[in-house]
């Protein structure tokens, strides 16, 4: 009924007309504003903070510094981050002090009157610098930090925050015995999320002890737990509200502004305080997506079969770890790409630098990983002189193979990569040979494959609550936040399908309130359909059972005789004998006024199963419930003289298991394609020689604009059901972007006859590479 239909997203009409409310749209009378004084140095000792002039500035209610945070350290995995810089600043743009005032202008004026004396210190600005012997240490006290969510393996006395490994088989020997071996080095810069809505938070501490938070967060329940922990109060007293979100891409998983707003509110006796990132601040102060350096060696026998691999990745975590150690393990888990390899040696280092810190970015490390693997695959194919498509097909991982973390794959768990590759090649009219198009232009294609699982914690939970309105319509409450991919609508579709009723009669909570909505771990990892879907299915069963119980009395039959559909409960053998939802939703009343039953309230709850953390030495473990595989490609028109190019066609085929909402799925994938191509072609967080952010606004941080996108999108899906997921659906939220930079680089490498092993691929980079080739 609803699953498989292009249903309008529940929040779409209000977004379209501008009526949708985002966090910063709400103004509360009497609210105070906090402005942030940020570090003008990548690394400096804070000698002195003179608050007097700022404190006296008109309208200023408080000035908050690290001293007010009482040594608090935050961090999802490793608690290494003071909310306000303590004795040292570790990145340009790091929050150092807050000025809380009547209005934003007063707060900003206060910041300009704050005088902070810094003593600049030498900074480490690349992972190479950070790993050199005697490099300045970003965290001299590394061993003293609490590990909030192991595993994480910091190395005291170095800038290595963590190392994660995969050891499977005998990579050394396998490579030694290989007929062909390719080795390459890759460099990918950090990237910004550049969500349309900048991050913001509002906190009020009430006199009864409740803390009311409104935030742009993908993880309201994480905010609740962390604030309770950090502030040593009950979780039940922390009430987090998460309204519609204007784009997140992982950037709204870090709990940053919520803590600052809390400290600010506490400093003014609990009055409501708002902190809203200006764009420049959002780029400089709040976390970005990680850059990395990687070396990969991949071998094949003389028939082109993959033999073994070695991969070393240095993740540029920036000044604090945040989720980087988890990203490192996600990279480990899928380090082979979607290919069968028995001999693997992978090390992923999380390295501190004096850059703004990194967090999740769409794909959780899989986009850079896919770049590294898929570039290496193309190089290997070139060495062997085989068609890169055929080589990928031959190497594709299959049911009964095991992953790098030794998960045995089944068709349900994995999906069908070969079908995706073939379909993508068809859509692209695959031709690995560049074609001369006259006037110095070349048309060339590139393909890349991808896979990803969720890398969620082993105890991630999700819940659903259904209440019935008297008229027989339903309210559905789940714990996911809504930032575009229509998770609420998907949940409603699953419910509508299960109850065989119109989706228009299902009403979703679009705003999350942790006090009333059931928990969903975090709206990340593209897991919402699966986890929420499971909870919704269970809640639907609960509702059905309750409906049948009441209806059985009304219809004088056994509950087992009944079916539910079209908002009715009816006799299976004679559907004309039925009772409509509206007669039993709030209890059934007999003609004389007697009533039985009560409001029907369904509940469902789900916890991921069989997920384990990875073994510290070998990486063995089970990182996620299922995989999504796919293949993507591009065709470019490249100008040999100017090195300019245009993406003519972008192709994506994902194994979606089951496409729940075709229109929305296409939209999500197309957005992903564009994001991947934008990163592939122009985006990079740049730093000056002193470590200052060089492009701190959207005039200089370039994202793709309308008109610059691929001229044509060809988006398709393969459907190999994941049997333990509602209606077989697999995750697909992040995947649209994952292989695009790799496909672009493969196409341009072929077009220009160079090795595109870095991003972004601007015409200047291609010009440089071409110059090196000629030299």
């Amino acid at each position, binding site marked *: 009924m609803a699953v498989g239909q292009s249903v309008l997203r529940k929040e779409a009409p209000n977004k379209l007309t501008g009526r949708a409310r985002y966090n910063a749209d709400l103004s509360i009378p009497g609210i105070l504003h906090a402005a942030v004084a940020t570090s003008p140095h990548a690394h400096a000792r804070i000698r002195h903070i003179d608050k007097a002039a700022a404190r006296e500035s008109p309208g200023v209610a408080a000035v908050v510094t690290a001293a007010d945070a009482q040594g608090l350290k935050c961090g999802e995995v490793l608690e290494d981050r003071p909310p306000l810089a303590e004795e040292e600043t570790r990145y340009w743009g790091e929050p150092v002090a807050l000025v809380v005032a009547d209005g934003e202008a007063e707060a*900003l*004026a206060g910041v300009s009157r704050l005088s902070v004396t810094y003593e600049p210190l030498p900074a480490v600005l690349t992972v190479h610098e950070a790993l050199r012997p005697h490099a300045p240490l970003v965290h001299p006290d590394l061993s003293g930090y609490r590990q909030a969510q192991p595993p994480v393996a910091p190395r005291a006395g170095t800038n290595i925050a963590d190392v994660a490994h995969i050891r499977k088989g005998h990579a050394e020997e396998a490579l030694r015995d290989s007929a062909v071996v390719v080795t390459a080095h890759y460099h990918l810069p950090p990237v910004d999320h550049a969500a349309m809505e900048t991050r913001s938070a509002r906190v009020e501490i009430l006199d009864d002890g409740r803390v009311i938070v409104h935030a742009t967060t993908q993880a309201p329940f994480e905010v609740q737990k962390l604030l309770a922990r950090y502030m040593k109060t009950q979780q039940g007293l922390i009430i987090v509200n998460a309204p519609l979100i204007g784009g997140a891409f992982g950037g709204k998983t870090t709990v940053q502004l919520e803590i600052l707003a809390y400290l600010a509110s506490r400093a003014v006796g609990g009055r409501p305080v708002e902190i809203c990132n*200006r764009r420049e601040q959002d780029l400089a102060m709040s976390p970005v997506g990680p850059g990395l350096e990687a070396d990969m060696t991949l071998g094949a026998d003389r028939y082109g079969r993959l033999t073994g691999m070695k991969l070393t990745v240095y993740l540029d975590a920036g000044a604090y770890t945040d989720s980087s150690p988890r990203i490192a393990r996600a990279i480990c888990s899928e380090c082979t790409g979607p290919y069968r390899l028995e001999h693997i040696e992978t090390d992923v280092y999380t390295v501190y630098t004096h850059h703004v810190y990194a967090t999740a970015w769409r794909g959780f490390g899989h986009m850079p990983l896919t770049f590294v693997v898929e570039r290496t695959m193309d190089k290997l194919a070139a060495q062997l002189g085989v068609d890169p498509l055929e080589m990928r097909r031959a190497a594709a991982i299959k049911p009964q193979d095991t992953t790098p973390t030794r998960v045995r794959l089944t068709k349900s768990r994995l999906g069908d990569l070969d079908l995706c590759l073939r379909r993508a090649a068809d859509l692209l009219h695959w031709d690995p040979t560049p074609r001369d198009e006259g006037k110095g232009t070349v048309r060339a294609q590139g393909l890349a494959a991808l896979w990803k699982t969720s890398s969620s914690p082993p105890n991630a939970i999700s819940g659903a609550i259904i209440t019935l309105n008297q008229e027989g319509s339903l309210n559905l409450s789940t714990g996911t936040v809504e930032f575009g991919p229509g998770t609420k609508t998907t949940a409603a579709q699953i419910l509508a399908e299960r109850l065989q009723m119109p989706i228009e009669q299902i009403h979703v909570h679009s705003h999350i309130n942790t006090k009333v909505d059931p928990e969903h771990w975090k709206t990340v990892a593209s897991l919402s359909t699966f986890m929420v879907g499971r909870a919704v299915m269970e809640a639907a069963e609960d509702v059905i059972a309750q409906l049948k119980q009441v209806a059985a009395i009304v219809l004088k039959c056994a509950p087992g005789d009944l079916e539910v559909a079209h908002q009715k409960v009816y006799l299976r053998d004679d559907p004309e004998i039925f009772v409509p939802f509206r007669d039993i939703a709030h209890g059934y009343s007999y003609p004389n006024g007697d009533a039985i039953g009560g409001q029907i309230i369904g509940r469902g709850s789900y916890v991921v199963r069989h997920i384990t953390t990875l073994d510290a030495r070998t990486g063995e473990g089970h990182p996620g419930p299922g995989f999504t595989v796919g293949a993507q490609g591009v065709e470019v028109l490249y100008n040999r003289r100017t090195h300019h190019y245009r993406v003519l066609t972008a192709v994506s085929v994902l194994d979606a298991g089951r496409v729940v909402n075709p229109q929305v799925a296409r939209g999500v994938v197309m957005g992903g394609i564009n994001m991947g191509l934008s990163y592939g072609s122009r985006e990079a967080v740049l730093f000056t020689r002193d470590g200052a952010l060089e492009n701190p606004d959207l005039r200089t941080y370039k994202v793709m*604009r309308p008109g610059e996108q691929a001229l044509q999108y060809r988006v398709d899906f393969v459907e190999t059901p994941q049997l333990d997921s509602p209606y077989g659906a697999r995750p697909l939220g992040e995947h649209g972007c994952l292989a695009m930079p790799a496909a672009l680089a493969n196409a341009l490498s072929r077009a220009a006859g160079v090795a595109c092993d870095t991003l972004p691929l*601007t015409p200047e980079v291609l010009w440089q590479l071409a110059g090196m080739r000629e030299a």
Partner: protein
Amino acid sequence: MIAVDFAYRRPDTLAGAYELFSDLARRGENPFYLGGGTEIVTGARTGLFTPSSVIDVKAISDLRALAVHDGRLILGAGLSLREILAKDPWPLLSHILSRIADHSVRTQITLGGNLVGSIPYREAVLPFLLTESAVRLYGSGGDRWVPLAHVFTDGSLRLAVGELLVALSVPEAVTRLGGVACKKTRFDWVDYPLVTVAARRQPGRRIPALAVSGLTSGPFRALRVEDALLHAGPAEIPLRELLPEAPLDDRHGSSAYREFVFRNTLEDVLEQLGPNG
């Protein structure tokens, strides 16, 4: 949001604006004339600019001129790029203006602001550098028209303290002649230029007049490049000797890349202008 308070004033006349400016300056203030405000506003947001007073001049009638007078097209410095584009009095100028910033920003940026502002590209000046242009200034030297070439030197407009750019003018006949403009950016359609070249045929000369922005620290009329092109093609001319200074080296593009792009752009421009270019 701009953190600091400043006074905003909007005088009606040139004299009023200039007197206000002089008065405020005498009192030790740091006044700025305000055009579209895009540079002042973005600078003030990040604390680069801390004006204590702004004097909005763009509504003064002399700055809003858009007319042909005595055979010359006169364009007021207070016109927004968008307003000029809508009237399209000079196709070559429109061509250049249409590539500055994006539509919404062009509704703000003024012709005067683009020429006087500190963002070094000042692309709007390029077509004016190709011909006998004049500028109307108002300040300590009175209200005067001077040849653009006298006051636009080393890539920027030399204004005395408090001097206002009121308008620009070119011979009307010039606006009907052709010309080409070619803008090259790092990659994006909307971006600062790596190189922008404006070119116009010159009677009796084989090589067109060329004006260049983005390549070096300010726009310039490339007379020496024009001469060199009489003897060699864009790929061969000894570029470094012909430029006022070495090409810029920044995140938009390295010096060597800018040189490469400039040579290509010259080729494109000459080709577009045709054999008699």
